[in-house]
């Protein structure tokens, strides 16, 4: 079985050996590129998304007052209504720092992300622990005007991956140390990337419209491209102080993180 073939192997020419190794190198390169693409486009959204979620949970934990945990447990079953108090205004910290938490039940039962100051691509949007950023030129959280955020729709954890799944009436919650702001999703809009008017105090309008608190989420459209932007608008629907417990819809998730 061996004698007729073995000698011929030894006689392999230099050219054959070079061709063989080149082939292996090329196959390896192809496999690596395939692996990279599946990581970048699919796997990493879960890997990095989980890390962003974890860092948000860690921040939520810091804000939980230790004595309030029993009160919150008692209220877990009751329906929590928004308060009549005026919501507090959160003055944003230095760029790249997380200062609030975003809960969107439509994006999944475990979904929570930090909101960081600024929309720098490398330090905020691509970050393994941040992901969602506030436009520096938009209004402060809790204040009248437009609280505008950006995040990736695909890749780098894809915090706004399901932005197209939002339905009218969906709640968007923003947690701060004092409690929870709630916004009600109103509509989506598709614009060019140059349409910065979506960040206006009242989106798209030049003049001031007093008395409105708006949340604006911006992301890429269509998925996996950067040619357009998808915009989601929400209107303020209530303020939930921390003493009163979290909004019913996210109460379980908040308790889980405490």
């Amino acid at each position, binding site marked *: 079985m061996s004698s007729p073939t073995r000698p011929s192997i030894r006689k392999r020419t230099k050219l054959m050996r070079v061709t063989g*190794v080149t082939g*292996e*190198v090329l196959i390896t390169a192809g496999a*690596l590129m395939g*692996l*990279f693409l599946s*990581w*970048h486009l699919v*796997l*990493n959204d879960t*890997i990095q998304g989980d890390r962003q979620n974890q860092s948000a949970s860690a921040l939520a934990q810091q804000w939980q007052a230790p004595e309030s945990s029993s009160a919150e447990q008692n209220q877990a079953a009751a329906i929590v209504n928004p308060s009549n108090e005026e919501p507090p205004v959160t003055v944003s910290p230095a760029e790249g720092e997380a200062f609030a938490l975003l809960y969107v039940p439509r994006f999944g039962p475990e979904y929570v992300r930090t909101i960081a100051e600024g*929309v720098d*691509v*490398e330090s905020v*949007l*691509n970050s*393994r622990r941040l992901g969602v950023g506030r*436009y520096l030129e938009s209004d402060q959280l809790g204040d009248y005007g437009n609280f505008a955020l*950006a*995040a*990736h*729709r695909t*890749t*780098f954890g894809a915090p*706004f991956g399901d932005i197209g799944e939002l339905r009218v009436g969906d709640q968007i919650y923003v947690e701060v140390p004092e409690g929870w702001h709630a916004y009600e999703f109103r509509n989506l809009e598709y*614009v060019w*990337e*140059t*349409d*910065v008017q*979506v*960040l206006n105090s009242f989106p798209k309008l030049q003049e001031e419209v007093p008395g409105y608190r708006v949340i604006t989420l*911006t*992301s*890429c459209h269509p998925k996996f491209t*950067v040619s357009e*932007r998808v*915009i989601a608008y929400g209107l303020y629907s209530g303020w939930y102080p921390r003493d009163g417990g979290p909004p019913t819809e996210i109460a379980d998730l908040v308790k889980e993180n405490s």
Partner: protein
Amino acid sequence: MYAALWRLLPGGVFLKLIQLTIILVIVVFVLFEWVFPWIAQTLLSEQSTVE
């Protein structure tokens, strides 16, 4: 290339397969944790903001 690696690894076929699996896991981990993030950050850092 791979033939040389196969010859280099000690032990029988079973042991060699185990070693290859370990090497593969380490390589994939290094790629996912450091190499791929760096490539993505450097080459494919797309904008998702309006500006």
